[in-house]
């Protein structure tokens, strides 16, 4: 008998299984857990997560790109946005500046080679707004599936007709699979678990980062994304003098402000809290509110 062949009972490294181990499908499992067990499980999960992070850290470290916003980076498990991840930007409502925020984050990712592909099923993207976010126009690949509906994007809240949705999703996945694309960004309301899983597999293979800008209704849906941000408007402010209501004026330094809250992070226990950003109306520069 070979030396390595042992009966299971005699294997020294085999972990001991306690008699009260909870198995999947046990209906009484939750009720039988004590606070001590739960703490133990949390510690185990955290330890396993740590091991996972350590094991892949050497491959991921070079692919993490910090955003231009230090406070936002602090919320992120890797202090930046990892290549090959799916990031959701959830808009709390109209005027939340979610798209502005997403483009500002995408601009930094374009410091690496690859195109910014924008799937624009609503045919409404103003490409002239991208240079403000640090995105060179020469890097923009705009994909516009045929769109026949006359309904505006504002009313539709990124709701797409069936054929347009299928074309947009198909294009999104194709672009996410390509290593020639650095970031893919699109606006979409509903996304099935299958579509999300396909996207996840696609970006894991290619290293492309997918930004999905979605309405608040997406919060009710399950997600496979690596990061999920909730962006909500915080109103506008006017620094200095000259602010008037309901009248024309030339403001000295008006800004729009919004909150960004990280509400999901797949690989780690995320930092609680949020950060506040603002966009200067005159320059279009997005910065943190200190």
């Amino acid at each position, binding site marked *: 008998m070979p030396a390595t062949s042992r009966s299971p009972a005699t294997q020294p490294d085999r972990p001991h299984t306690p008699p009260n181990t909870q198995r999947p499908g046990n209906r009484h499992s939750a009720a039988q857990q004590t606070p001590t067990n739960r703490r133990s499980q949390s510690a185990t999960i955290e330890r396993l997560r740590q091991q996972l992070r350590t094991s892949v850290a050497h491959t991921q470290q070079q692919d993490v790109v910090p955003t231009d916003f230090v406070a936002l980076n602090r919320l992120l498990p890797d202090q930046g946005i990892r290549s090959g991840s799916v990031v959701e930007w959830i808009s709390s409502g109209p005027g939340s500046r979610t798209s502005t925020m997403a483009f500002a984050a995408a601009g930094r990712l374009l410091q690496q080679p690859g195109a910014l592909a924008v799937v624009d099923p609503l045919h409404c993207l103003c490409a*002239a707004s991208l240079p403000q976010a640090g995105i*060179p126009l020469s890097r923009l690949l705009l994909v516009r599936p045929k769109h026949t509906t006359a309904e505006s994007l504002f009313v539709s809240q990124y709701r797409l007709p069936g054929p347009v949705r299928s074309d947009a999703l198909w294009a999104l996945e194709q672009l996410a699979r390509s290593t020639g694309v650095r970031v893919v960004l699109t606006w979409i309301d509903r996304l099935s678990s299958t579509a999300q899983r396909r996207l996840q597999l696609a970006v894991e293979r290619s290293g492309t980062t997918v930004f999905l800008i979605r309405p608040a209704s997406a919060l009710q849906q399950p997600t496979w994304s690596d990061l999920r941000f909730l962006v909500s408007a915080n109103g506008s402010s006017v620094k200095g003098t000259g602010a008037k209501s309901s009248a024309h004026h030339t403001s000295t330094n008006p800004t729009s402000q919004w909150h960004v809250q990280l509400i999901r992070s797949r690989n780690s226990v995320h930092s609680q809290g949020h950060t506040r950003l603002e966009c200067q109306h005159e320059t279009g520069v997005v910065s943190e509110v200190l």
Partner: protein
Amino acid sequence: MKRVLCLRFCNWPVQRLQRLQSTDSQGGLVSRLAIYTAAPQAGAAAARSDSEQRDTAFVRDIFPSSRSGATILCSSQAAWHQGVRPGLPLGEARSMAAPVAKPSAAGRQPADTHFVPWDPVGDRRTLMELAEHARMFAPLIGLENGPVPDSLIMDITGCGVLFQGETVLAERLLKTFQQSGWQCRVAISDSAAAAWAFAHPGGHLLTQSTGPGEIDPRFDQSWQADSIIIPPGQSAGYLGSFPVAAGRIPLTDVRTLAELGIHTLRQLLDLPVEDLPSRLGNTTIERIRQLAGVDEELIRSIPEASPITASWVSETGATSRSEIRQVLDHLTQELEPQLRHRGLGAIALQAVMKHEDGSTDTLSAQVVSPLQDAARLLEVLHLRIESLHVKRPVFSIRMTTTVAPLPVARQKDLFSASEHLEPQEELTAVINRLNGRLGNNAVLTAAVSDSSVPEDTIQLTPVMSETAVTSRRTAACRIEQLVQTEADAADKAFAVRPVFLLPVPVRVPSLKPAARTFVWEGRTFEMQEWIGPERVQTHWWQEISVHRDYYRLLTTQGPEFWAFQNLTDGTWFLHGIFE
């Protein structure tokens, strides 16, 4: 950047006939040869093709004597030295060429001068036949766009690397033709107009002031070399000193310009473009715009003599999409060995499907870079088939290809075939697929235009155009830019613009500064703040007049709009959303 080569055949009508005559008589080249235009005959014009009529009109414009009788068009160097010059009436030329020399000691008479009628159709046809010998140097070859052509125009954008540089390409091209006995010159520049000018510094063949093979004293000898290669972006600087005639300007306009004291291309290009249409013809304006790089000259491709095709015919007919797909799969696989045999790649596939009544449907697919692999071609074709509606049986399908040289093959990684693929290659593949399913107009790149009107500030261009075959190389350049990390300096000068721009400005009657609310898309918005204005207006000479004051409009509900007042009539519009 686009690169165009002009291959000029020196003294073309004479050179062609000299070779033709020598072939017939199995002797050396006929040294004394002159070509004349026949005297005009009533009713002959109707029988001529458009190009022939254009050539004849051009000749009559240059040589007024040809309107009334036979006139010398061009002559060989030996005949020229005899005094047989272009524009001379044929009878006079014959007397000039009559041998007056006495027989030599050996008793040999000096050779007679051959007078041969002009054959513009034959000239064009032979030039097109010669294009076949140049196929390996460029994917797109066309005749020069003008009367009495003597040159082939070749789009060689991106082809230089295939030959270790444009210099080697030019040398090999020249060698190919010179070994066959043709006398030719090559000029490479950024546009067809510039390349033609560098190959014809003295202007058109028929307007030359010097004899065949003689050096034009107006130009430095380097401009009369066999091969002229202008580095990218430097054409305008060199062209300036050339005479106006080098710009293919019609003779009447050359005379008009000369009367105005404009003799060089620099003087011509410095003229205010807005005033030119009132003084010069459309052709001249077109040429000026092409020389200035404003317009791109379309190279009309010469069809291949033996295209790569595959056909299928059936008595029963294909009635469903899946059956047609099977046939197309089979035909594409038939094309692959033909492509491999010729060492070419397909950049477009066109399947013409014929129905019982003789009507046809066409299915076409294009790819950005040349492909040989049937599987990859099928991948693109399948996406097109999905949008095909088969209403009637298809009884025959003929598939044709547009071909181009394959890009340089690189050694792949030892362990993985895809590991070392360049990002632009990956991007090219995905663009092929996107174009296949969504159509060419759905995949766009952006560039800054010179318009100040917000909806036109950015020019969106399909990566691959449906019509322009010449855009293939441009597409490859665009894709390369997409993956590069160098920022475009022109982007930095932009004013702040909203992320969303409505396709057309929407007039909102309830939107007024004095009002507290306005209604749009069935929703009422309470106005909180107006910030602005930013005035946007066009110049007085532009066709579309725009005079707007833009405001950023903040509402209590959250959305920030971009609204403007039309200063012409005071109406208010919503144009964008800061989102």
